[in-house]
Structures are given as C-alpha cells and as structure tokens.
C-alpha cells in the first residue's frame, strides 16, 4: 500500500510498512534527522512534530496514521530559523548538547499557537513531557516567555 504525507510543504509518496513510526520514516527514509529518537514510548518528547498543526510524538504515530496529513518538523518550522521561538532560543543560549531542543521548540510552538500568553504554570504544564538531561529547563521557560512577548508585540 502506498501512503501520501505532506512534510514541510512537500508531498511524499511512500510504500514503506504502514506500521513504521513516523519518527523512523522521517529519520531513516527521508533523512530528516532534526526529529530525534529518545525513548520510543512517548516519554521524552524529543521526536515531537506537528501533525495537521498539532504537536505529536512521532514515535507514537505510524506512517499509516499520518497518511493524507500534513507534517511539520523542526526543519520546516520556519524557512530560515526566524520563528520567534528559534530567535528566543538563541537569545537565551538555551541549548547545551541540543539534542532535545528541536522537540522542546516544536511543543513550545504548539503551546504559543493555542495559548499566546501562557503563564509560568502553563509553560511548565505544556513542557512537562519534554525531557532534557543537560538541565536547560530554566532557559526553556524564559525563551518561551520571551517569544510569547515578542509575538504579542508583532501580532497586530
């Protein structure tokens, strides 16, 4: 069976096994490695992508389930790294090893879309499923708050 998935605006046809998690289709088949493997059980959030606009953990979504849908990965969040979250991440020097950060940013982007003015508690609640072993959480919080502030100013 053939599946059709639009990834970062580009249509892809594939005949891989429909049970294959989207994560491995992205990483191994399409070589879009910005989406990371961390746990394979939806526990760490490193593999987060947007599926028809909503943040999902791509280790838990199969290629079959993504059929006919639109996927955005970290590589497609903005054309040139100019999403306010990406800028805020740089301004706050958030990343240490950086491995979990694409997933953090993808969840944060979903949060700000749904809740443009999140409280500190809202941020912690939304980001609870994204683990960082380096311990960048204080900067993750600050970057999201900064980006929200930035977007508020820009969205007139």
């Amino acid at each position: 069976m053939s599946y059709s998935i639009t990834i970062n605006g580009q249509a892809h046809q594939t005949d891989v096994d429909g049970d294959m998690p989207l994560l491995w289709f992205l990483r191994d088949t399409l070589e879009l490695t910005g989406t990371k493997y961390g746990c394979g059980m939806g526990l760490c959030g490193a593999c987060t992508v947007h599926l028809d606009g909503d943040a999902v953990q791509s280790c838990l979504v199969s290629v079959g389930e993504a059929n006919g849908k639109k996927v955005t990965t970290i590589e497609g969040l903005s054309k040139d790294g100019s999403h306010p979250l990406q800028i805020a991440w740089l301004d706050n020097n958030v990343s240490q090893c950086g491995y979990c950060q694409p997933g953090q940013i993808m969840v944060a982007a979903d949060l700000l879309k749904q809740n443009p003015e999140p409280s500190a508690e809202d941020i912690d609640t939304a980001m609870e499923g994204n683990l960082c072993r380096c311990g960048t959480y204080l900067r993750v919080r600050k970057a999201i708050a900064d980006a929200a502030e930035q977007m508020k100013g820009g969205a007139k």
Partner: protein
Amino acid sequence: MNTQLKELNAITRRDFLKASGLSAGGLIIGVSLPMGVLGAADSADFEPSAFIHIAKNGDTTLFCGRCEMGQGISTALPAAVADELEADWTRVTVLQGDADKKYGPQDTGGSQSINKMLEPMRKAGAAGREMLVAAAAKAWSLPVADCYAKSHVVYNRKDGRKLPFGDLVELAGELPVPGEPVLKTRDQFRYIGQPLQRHDQDEMVVGKRIFGADKKVPGVKYAAIKHIPVLGGSVKPLDKSKAMAIAGVVDVVVIPRFENPYGTVGGVAVVADNTWTAQKALDALGVEFEAGENGSFNTTEYKQQLLRNVEAPAKVEFEKGSLDQAFKDAAKRHSATFETGFLSHSPIEPMAGLVWVQDDSCEIWASTQDPQGIQRTIGAYLERKPEDITVHVMAAGGAFGRKFKCDYIVEAAACSKAVGAPVQLTWSREEDTRTGYYHPCSAHRVEASLDADGNLTGWLHRAAFPTISSTFNPASVQPSADDLNAVSKHLYGVENMRVESGMARAHTRIGWLRSVYHIFYGFVINVFTDELAHEAGVDMAQFLRKMYDNNKDPEQQEQIKRSRGVLDKVVEMSGYGKNMPAGHGIGLAVHHSFASYAAMAAHVEVKGNDIKVHRVDCAIDCGLVLNPDIATAQMEGAVTMGLGFVLHPGISFANGAVVNSNYHDYPIPSVGEAPTKINVGFVGQQYRSTGIGEPGVPTTAPAVVNAIFAATGKRLRSMPIKLA
C-alpha cells in the same frame, strides 16, 4: 549582556555546515603541546599540532580537539585561542577535530579540558599572533616592537600602516614557530571572560546539528541490538529465520562479549534497511540468554551486604593521629550510616554511531568523549593499528561520562564487518538503561567526636562500593586508598582520622558518571557535617568556618581559603540562617572536586511526601571564568541532574539484570521539578582556570537533604531519599 557583545554574538551565529572546506595555501600554525599534558604512552608519538588555520582571505578556522557534548568546550577553548591570536571572532569558524594525537589528549572527562588545555591552546594562539606580527615587521622592514596585532590586522606603530591577517599568511608561514610566546595579561583579554555565544547554538534550533545518531552515508544500513542482560552471561542458540523472513532485514549478527573494558557485553544485533525494521526483527527473534555467574545479583541483598561490611572494622587505608584516644576523650560522639544507589547516565541521545569497516579502512562517526580510545579499542577489536581507524567526532547528545566507553562502536563495527556495508547502530532506550557503566551504589559508616567547645576531634569513615577499577581489573573488590581520597584528604583538618575500605565485589560494569565518587562523598560528608553542626549547637556555616579555621595544614591553606570563599558567597546569596516559613528550609553544602570549589544553598518546601526545590544558590570557584554564560549553564545543569540523583529512584538489579527500562521507571528531572531560580555566583577569579562540568553536581543532593532537615527536622541518610 552589553550591546556590543550582543551584536558580536549576532554576527557570529553561523551555520557549521556553511563552513567551506579549507582553501589551499592557508597558514596552518602548528604548536607543540608541552609534554606535561600528554599521557606517557602518547608522548613518543606526538607531533606538532594544528589548531589554527588562516586562509589567504583571512577566514580563520580553529580546531577543537576536545569533544563537545553540551558543555560548551568547543566555544570556550577556541575563543581563548582567538583572543591570544587577536583574531576577530566574527571571522572564526570552529571545527571539531577528528581523532588525532596532533590535538593532544582528547579524552574529554574529569573536567580536565580547561584545566589541562587552556594554557597550551592560549600558547597556540599567542604563537600565531607573534608570527603574524613578525611577518608584518619583515614586510615593513621594521623591528617587531614597532608592530602589533589587533582584531585580524597587524598595525605599524610608526606610521599607522596596516596589513590584514590574510595578507600575511604566506610570509608568516615561512617563519619559525616561537617556542615560548608571550601570553596576554588579563587586562588585554577580548573574549576570555566574556559571555560569547556558543558557536553551535543556531544549528541546534533548526534541527541541523548532526549528532552521532544522525550521521548518514550512501548505502548506510541500520542496526538494533539486544544485549546479554547479565554481565558474563551468554546468548542461547538462536534461530535467525524469524528475523530473516522480515522484508528489509539484511542480517542477524551474534556479537560475543569483547572483554576489553571499553568493549561489549555481547548480544544480538539485527541489520536492516531502517532502524524500525531492525527493532521489529530483533523482537521477532525472541532472543534468550543464559545468566551466568552474576545471575543471582540483586540490589536489595547487595546493599544490605555493603551495609554489613561497613558496620564491622574493615581494611584500614588511611590513618592519622589517634582516633581511639579522640573518641575516648570526646565530649560528644555522633555516628550515622548512609547508603546511596546505582545511577545511570541516560543521555537523551542513546548510544549511537556509524561505522564502516572495509578491507583497507575503517571509518567511524561517533558521539564520543574519547575518540583516541575508539581508535585503540576498535584497533584491538579488528586487529588493526589504532592510527588506521578514522574517527570523526560528532556532537554528542549528552554523554555525562557514558560516551567515554565505546562498546556501541565495537558493536556497530561487528555489524558493519558482517554485512560489508556502513552501519548506523542506535541503541533503544531500554538497552541504554540496561547496558550501562553504572555509578556505583555505596554504604558508609561515619563516626565523629566533638570536644566540649564543639570542635571536631576525630573522624572514622568506612566506605564500601564496587569500584570503577573493577571494570578494568576483576581483582578490584573494594575501594583502594585512592578511591577514599575524598575523605582522607578533605579539608576539615581533623587530627585523628581513620578511613577504612569495605568489601564490595562488582557484579555489573561500573563507570564514571558526572563527578564520579564525589556524588556520594559530597552527599555523605555534607549531610554528616550538618548533623555534627546540629550536635555542636551551631549552624553548618558556623561549623564549617570553625573547622576551616582549625585546619593549620600548610598544604591545605589555599584550598581552605577557596572553600571559605564559596561558603561565604553562598551564605550571602541565599540568606542562609534567616527564618523560613513553616515547611520551608535552606540547606547548605560545600565540596571541592576536580580542582574547583562549589557551595550550594537549596531552598526546599516539604508538604507531606512532596518535595519542592524552589531555589538553589550556587557559588563556584573555578578560577578565572572563561565564559560566564556557559559556566552558568553548566551549574544550572549540575543542579538539575543532582536533583534527579537525590529525588528519583536509582537503578536496581534483579537476577543479575537491570530492572529499570525507560524514562517511566528511571525518571530524570522534568521542567516541573526544576527550581524557579538557580543563581550562580563566581568567586576566586584571580586563580587559574579549572573545570566546571562536574564540580557543581556533588553539592546538590546534600543541600537538598539538609534543607529537608531544616524544614522538617527529619534526617535522611540515603540517596535517593526515602521519605516514608
């Protein structure tokens, strides 16, 4: 951050991937490293290194030989080189060096990169600057003294003429490398001490940073592995057909144990067209194992045994004064027993790497902390010379000591050799959790005496834990004198002391995890010190100051002064000693490790069994801070990791195998557990620079536990804590 620096940081945001190949004809400045920084085995082979490349157009590439795993070393060291070189940081690209002795030691651990490499790297930069200045002087027929370098240009003091670095490349390349270049004085620093943005931040936020797990080459195959779960066990006979029947499977590879300390415990791998197929086929195989000699190992009984081993007198490894007399004369004696658990590194990027073994070459792309160790280990495994193994050092998605060992690279090499193709091996999270080199559990019996004035007069410390040495030498069955140094050389100046080693045979691989034995020594010593302060009727800061004052050992005066410095700073930052609301407390800890000094004060709230760490103040003395923003991030990380060590369940074993499997049963701290504030203060900047990666870890757990006591009056003596 000031505006100028902000602009500089903005300009410097450059994509690693944009770094063009080095143009021919550039100036490569080779500078010998002093022999002192090299391991004895390496010194004979050492050749002049190449940290600096300046192209004819002035574009400058700085190579970092130390491995980047998030600690920021590939910014901090090259920035110091750029400073000495008088290079304009906006013209600099940083590249990670492959495994090569020309970079000196590359084994990135023990918080040694800055401690060992800063001076040689600064010298490399200064030598480069002197050669460029000498080249300009030659071009102008002037004495060198009439020329100086500033920001990628050499100026003529006499008439203001100038020559950019790029124009001097050819001439400078013909000059000898100065043996003893003159280093800058601190007032001349441009980048050292500034919060320069890391060179690798921007590619991370767009998903372009290539970690070991991300590397692709044409024709790559993917592998998944199941390890023998019990150390020394074996794989039962296997029917490969169930895996081979699955479309996309290339081969099933049985990998025997390779008893090199960095080798592999052995297991079964499946190589396939993609990782998911490999994982699926591996599950279909239904691999079974024989447990072998460690099959009855379990943590419950083992910890009980260690506790028994420290209750009775054990092997004396250090003694001074007369402890028996001190105990006899004591106004007060206090004793306690502590236990700490096994811990796993659990970086979010599991063990992963890409290996391509061919008849006449072996090329490796690895997340690693020890690329030359990979050369040696894979060399031994493939029976080839280490220098014939090419190792590209990839960004590590967290490492924390685990990626110092290269068992996963051995396994990828076994797969590549078997299938004759490049193989990317990515361990599952479960395999990562269950196939570690674990931080050891430990048991400690500590007893101390106080005189009538509350002075500490005697200290007995009996410790038992399986040692890291056991991974290299099975005959190591208890801590050595060196393993007990954190106690025998600590800074309390106790005149009567005995340090004893209890039996603790290892039944799993033991390894170093960020701050290593200091994790439990920092915990035990600081918690027990808080207890002693309480017994003496003073707070811990007062008690520590008294002990530091009492310590007259001339060899420890600088260490005492610096410990006192971080203590005073953290008391000032945190307001330690002030009244706190009911259920709240501030706990203190001070620890010296890896040539640096850390003090922490944790503000904790306890509600029932719920513990919330609101704020942690950290004072750190790592000498001159190269990059305060990166150093602050390291402390934030150390606090967060330390919180997990003390608040979350550790690794446990049953029937010889690890019981935990993934982040649900070996949880690591999440954002909700991170303190609202982590304040970092630097002291002791007049001293030479030392490491920052590890020294912040040991103080976190005891500061939290001492805060729980301050909040509740409840003494906890285990890590992870047991509240109920």
